[in-house]
């Protein structure tokens, strides 16, 4: 069952900026979906359209079967981290959350629970203006968790976090996913979400380039065979003659086309010494670059 369904979603700001261009996707329940793309790709605008903060120019989007504004007590169904700086600097962290909790009709006890979840109880009595960017990010995350929602939309949650914070966030997301929540997490730093996501949506320049389980997408990516040889030039010529795409830097070769076994056999048959030979599993970043570079759309 799809938790979020977008159909032909587009958003144009003024005449010149087409932020999101005819995007259609579905987010399945219980999965952690990475919403990936470079800065300015249209991720935030899409998330804000899901949450009824930005009005689509065309198309429609439903979350839990309805428009966000039509959900009963939406904060108890959907939690969103959109803007970690979206708190009044003079308000304490606790009061910032209480304001949101009150508006959403939630008891203040939930504020304390959410603060504990993001490990911010100790600083909750301080004004937000004294928070580091990592603390503001945790506060925004606590805000998303106030209603104990079944769906979480997180826009660049790792922004401002130090390496320890990013590790904490990864563990945190895994724990929430293990509880069966649906999580849509956007990021432009692919390595941050690579170990966390089940599915991915890849967007660039407002266009959706790919969507699906990360394993399936990885299988479609062409693996790269890496070889190192003192006779790299000779091996490059042999492989190129067999139709392989080969890039050489000094003694190192990156080969697309043949499998590593075939490369090894060619080298052996022609007396080429190999110091290293392995197949590189494409990372999410490789996958993104390949899709962004070769496919125009799904």
């Amino acid at each position, binding site marked *: 069952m799809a938790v979020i369904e977008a159909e032909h979603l587009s958003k144009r700001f003024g005449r010149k900026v087409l932020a999101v261009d005819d995007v259609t996707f579905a987010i399945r329940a219980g999965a952690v979906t990475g919403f990936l793309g470079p800065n300015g790709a249209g991720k935030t605008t899409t998330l804000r359209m899901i949450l009824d903060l930005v009005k689509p120019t065309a198309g429609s989007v439903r979350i839990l079967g309805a428009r966000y504004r039509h959900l009963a007590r939406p904060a108890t169904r959907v939690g969103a981290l959109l803007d970690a700086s979206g708190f009044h600097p003079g308000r304490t962290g606790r*009061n910032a959350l209480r304001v949101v909790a009150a508006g959403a009709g939630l008891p203040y006890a939930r504020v304390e629970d959410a603060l504990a979840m993001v490990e911010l109880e100790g600083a909750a009595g301080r004004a937000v203006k004294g928070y580091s960017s990592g603390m503001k990010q945790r506060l925004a995350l606590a805000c998303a968790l106030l209603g104990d929602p079944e769906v979480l939309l997180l826009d660049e949650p790792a922004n401002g976090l130090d390496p320890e914070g990013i590790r904490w966030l990864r563990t945190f997301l895994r724990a929430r996913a293990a509880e069966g929540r649906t999580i849509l997490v956007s990021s432009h730093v692919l390595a941050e979400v690579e170990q966390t996501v089940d599915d991915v949506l890849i967007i660039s320049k407002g266009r959706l380039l790919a969507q699906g389980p990360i394993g399936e997408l990885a299988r479609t990516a062409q693996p790269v065979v890496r070889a190192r040889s003192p006779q790299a030039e000779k091996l490059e010529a042999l492989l190129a003659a067999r139709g392989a795409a080969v890039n050489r830097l000094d003694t190192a070769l990156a080969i697309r086309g043949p499998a590593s076994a075939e490369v090894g056999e060619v080298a052996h048959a022609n007396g080429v010494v190999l110091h290293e030979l392995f197949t590189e599993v494409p990372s999410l970043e490789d996958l993104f670059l390949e899709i962004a570079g070769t496919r125009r759309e799904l």
Partner: protein
Amino acid sequence: MISLLRAEFLKLRSTRTSLGLGIAVLLVSVVPTVLLVAFLPTRMLNGGELAAGATLVTYIVLVFGILGMTNEYRHGTITYTYLATPRRARVMIVKLVVYGAGGALAMLAALLAAQLVGVIGLPARGVSYQMPDGGALADYARQIGVAGLVTCFGVALGAFLRAQVVTVAGTLIWALLVEPLIVAFKPGVGTWLPFNVFGQVTASTIMSDAGGVGTQNGLARPEAFLVSVVYIAVVSVAAVVVSMSRDVT
């Protein structure tokens, strides 16, 4: 609605804006009254008519209303406000109600503070303090009501324009400079301009009766009140409509 009211009251209580408002209101109310009570010849001291800073309080609550709305955009809190309550019309209506009440309460506090100065200061000048009579109480009631309306006007302007500095500066320049010039040079037009209309509602009964400020600019008090309500209603409805369709980016 109750939860929204709770949220708006908490917003008011949890920053220093309200504290600043309170201090400013008391200052502009108490200081002129103290000066009047201390230095005005005793024959000119009216034991119950003490509202020297009421006009200034009206401008303070106007700015208070503008800040109440524009702060949401300035600090980006509008995102969380609309996520918690996506029905934006309700958010705007509750804000208008809460800030309107806040503005009226601020004026009430200012008037009470001025009375307190009278209670303490007048006997020291040898003038007996008198409880405000019916006319003075009616003046005060109008000032309280208009303060509430003006605060709503500020909230609606803030929702409409969003940019804090532009809205505060533009509104004050309009109210304190442009409108008085129009009233002076084109009184037929100026009579109908908003801040002049608000002023006609609150113009002192005593001063009007004596031929001073008040209704001499054209509108009878009931008319002025009606036009004030129309102004507030039009700007508030426009603010609600604009807020409902505006992108929060």
